[in-house]
């Protein structure tokens, strides 16, 4: 335990009704100890249910946990308690931006800007959103900008109402190919061309994943990554490492099933301390892997796996 956390924890233990939980929660959040930060914030809120800052802290933790709607609701509560809270407006603008609601994002950011015209991060974010709106690029930023994450707890975004608000870059869309059509519908169509899919294969499953705590990866027979991404909670893409460890699974399972007379293998699911990982044979002797948080019902994980397999089959066919 670091000195800061220990000191703040001691202080809170001495006086559980003090507002020091705000500092402690924020320190833990910045250190990515999100579960602890959440506990501290929730306990603080029990004693201070009408503290706008406490709801603001909870909103920022929710963003880090990838819980955008919860963050939005908390900031909404902040505004009810403190209608002039600029950070909450920035936060709500940020969430709307991540959800692709650019007009609403622009509205919240404009309000935040009116309250604090000198905040450069709000000005930059607002400029970027207005540029996107003017160019008619209403592509979903989450789909085009971020990679699926294995664990949402490790969001890389800084926070609109924290000491480090998002800069204008977080509101840019680096990919002009962002499209707004749903994965299942796309997977269902049989005659498609490569142009119908994201240019970056790492984003192939982004539509299927949406805002959920899931990730998907398509590996070839050698365990090399064909599409999808696997970003660890440290923000590192570990797709190649995961692929390397799983290389040969498909062939091994097929041979063993033949020896045992159990027919073709259809899926492998394993559970870890924090996630479900499911695999299925993919076309061309490949392997499709999906991972989801343990909070996801297993039946939904396998359904997600089926849809990801269907999508990867269509995508591979489009490359021929």
């Amino acid at each position, binding site marked *: 335990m670091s000195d800061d956390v220990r000191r703040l924890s001691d202080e809170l233990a001495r006086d559980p009704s003090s507002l020091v939980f705000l500092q402690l929660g924020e320190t833990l959040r910045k250190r990515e100890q999100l579960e602890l930060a959440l506990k501290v914030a929730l306990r603080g809120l029990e004693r201070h249910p009408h503290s706008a800052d406490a709801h603001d802290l909870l909103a920022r933790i929710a963003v880090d946990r990838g819980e955008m709607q919860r963050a939005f609701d908390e900031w909404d509560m902040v505004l009810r308690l403190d209608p002039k809270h600029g950070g909450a407006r920035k936060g709500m603008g940020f969430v709307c931006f991540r959800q692709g609601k650019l007009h609403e994002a622009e509205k919240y950011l404009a309000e935040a800007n009116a309250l604090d015209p000198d905040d450069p991060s709000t000005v930059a974010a607002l400029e970027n959103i207005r540029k996107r709106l003017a160019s008619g690029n209403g592509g979903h930023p989450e789909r085009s900008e971020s990679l699926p994450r294995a664990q949402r707890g490790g969001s890389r975004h800084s926070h609109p109402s924290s000491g480090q608000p998002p800069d204008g870059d977080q509101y840019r869309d680096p990919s002009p190919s962002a499209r707004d059509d749903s994965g299942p519908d796309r997977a269902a169509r049989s005659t498609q061309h490569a142009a119908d899919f994201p240019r970056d294969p790492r984003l192939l499953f982004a539509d299927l994943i949406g805002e959920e705590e899931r990730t998907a990866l398509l590996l070839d027979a050698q365990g090399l990554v064909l599409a999808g991404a696997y970003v660890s909670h440290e923000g590192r893409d570990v797709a190649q490492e995961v692929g390397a460890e799983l290389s040969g699974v498909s062939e091994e399972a097929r041979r063993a099933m033949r020896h045992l007379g159990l027919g*073709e293998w259809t899926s492998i699911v394993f559970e870890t301390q924090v*996630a479900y990982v499911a695999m299925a044979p993919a076309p061309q002797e490949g392997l499709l892997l999906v991972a989801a948080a343990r909070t996801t019902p297993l039946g939904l994980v396998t359904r997600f796996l089926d849809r990801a397999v269907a999508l990867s089959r269509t995508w591979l066919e489009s490359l021929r």
Partner: protein
Amino acid sequence: MSSPFADLLGTLVRQRGVMGGLVVSESDGIIVDATLQVGIKGNVVAALAASLFRKARLSSAAAGLGEAMFLTLEAEHGRVCAAGRSDLILVTIADPRTNLGLLRVEMLKGLEGGTLS
């Protein structure tokens, strides 16, 4: 003389549809103890389960997902399940009639019992 795993394996193979239970070394796929129906190729099951579980453990570590605990391979005419926390893993081979939820609980209970650690 019965092995320390006999009771555990006995409990598992009494489940409906379970055709065999094995305790296997994860590192080399060697059978430590097994209760199998006649005709089941224990060595194949053991080798496959050990290899899959090892890969699951390593890939899970690479992805920062913590320890792998339970694995199921589904095939057209049956399934192989494995559970483990140390070098020894508990493996079952079962037909599609098996109640997977129940089998999973029994296997994890077997791990909790500490017989394998």
